[in-house]
């Protein structure tokens, strides 16, 4: 198994981080929606607590992912891409990385403003970033929810672009990120 990235494909570590974060973001959405629909009771608070712990996990993984990206070569985009397509791809990826930080951090801030400390699965409590403030809490809640819609829109574009590469352009851009996937050219 190739752990590190090469100039043409993603290594196992990058793939793992990509897909585990995808799974966690889906889990986050499901938990947030479930909590919103729950009647006021302990289960609702517990579900939000889980959502927060997973959010902090995503933040930690995002840090690891950036570090790993800096320590490794980034597989190049196909030469067939026009300059503006190349720019759009890079901007979209930059945006996706930004959301991986912005979502957990706005969630953390929102929790503190609503006077909820953020505990990591009950193992330890994160420092409070802001003092309790109801109005700020409401603003941050709106920001957190709006950012998710933006993330969803960008992620949809990201998936559509991956499919375009795979089915239309028939290059390796999607395959090289798939778990256990091998590239069409068979290169490692």
């Amino acid at each position: 198994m190739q752990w590190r990235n090469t100039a043409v494909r993603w290594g196992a570590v990058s793939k793992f981080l990509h897909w585990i974060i995808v799974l966690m973001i889906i889990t986050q959405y499901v938990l947030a929606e479930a909590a919103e629909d729950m009647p006021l009771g302990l289960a609702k608070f517990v579900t939000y607590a889980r959502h927060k712990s997973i959010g902090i996990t995503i933040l930690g993984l995002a840090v690891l992912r950036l570090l790993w990206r800096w320590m490794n070569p980034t597989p190049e985009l196909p030469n067939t891409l026009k300059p503006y397509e190349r720019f759009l791809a890079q901007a979209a990826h930059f945006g996706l990385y930004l959301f991986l930080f912005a979502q957990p951090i706005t969630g953390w801030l929102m929790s503190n403003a609503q006077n909820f400390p953020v505990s990591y699965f009950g193992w330890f409590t994160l420092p409070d970033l802001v003092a309790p403030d109801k109005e700020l809490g409401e603003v941050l809640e709106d920001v957190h929810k709006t950012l998710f819609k933006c993330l969803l829109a960008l992620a949809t574009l990201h998936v559509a672009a991956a499919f375009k590469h795979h089915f239309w352009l028939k290059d390796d851009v999607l395959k090289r990120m798939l778990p256990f996937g091998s590239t069409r050219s068979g290169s490692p």
Partner: protein
Amino acid sequence: MKQIIAALILSAGAGTVLGATSYTMDASKSSLGFTANQSGGDFDGQFEKFTARIVFADADLAGSSFNVEVETGSVNTHDDDRDTALRGEDLFHVSKYRQARFVTTGFTRKAPGTYEALGKLTIRDVTRDIRVPFTFSTTTESGQTVAWLKGGVTLDRLDYGVGQGDWKDTTWVANEVKVKFSLRLLPVTATASAELAVQPAKPRPVK
């Protein structure tokens, strides 16, 4: 004979000076808060409405008393969902038990200015004997005597049934709740005498 009676009246007057003083609470500068632990993290809350009838003097602990009434519905933890949950049937059950109450039965002096109040705390329909350590000090603010009563006590919420059903589980909401209070007190007698002072003094006939 007249002199003896006058001396008796004077000494009786001195007795009331030494006796416990009644205070009214300055609600705007008094607080009753708590720290609870939810999902592993501490959060603070307070009760916005409560009254304290305090009668206290170091020299007259036997004549001292606290009577505190707390509107449980005034709980504020800066989150509507949590406050609504706290007011609900499984926690404070505000619609049925509107007030929590603390009434003292006695006091002990621990050190100068430091005491322990013994009393009965009622939350929901449960009354238990508790000991509340506190400090009592007096200062003068713009010529007026002001007393500060400060202290705290750790309670187990489940002792009082604050946590029915799911909320009995202490995994997510800890049993221990730290209660803190800081009361600014104004002596009733001082206020009354201040009011008297502005009126023209009337010589009291000595019989």
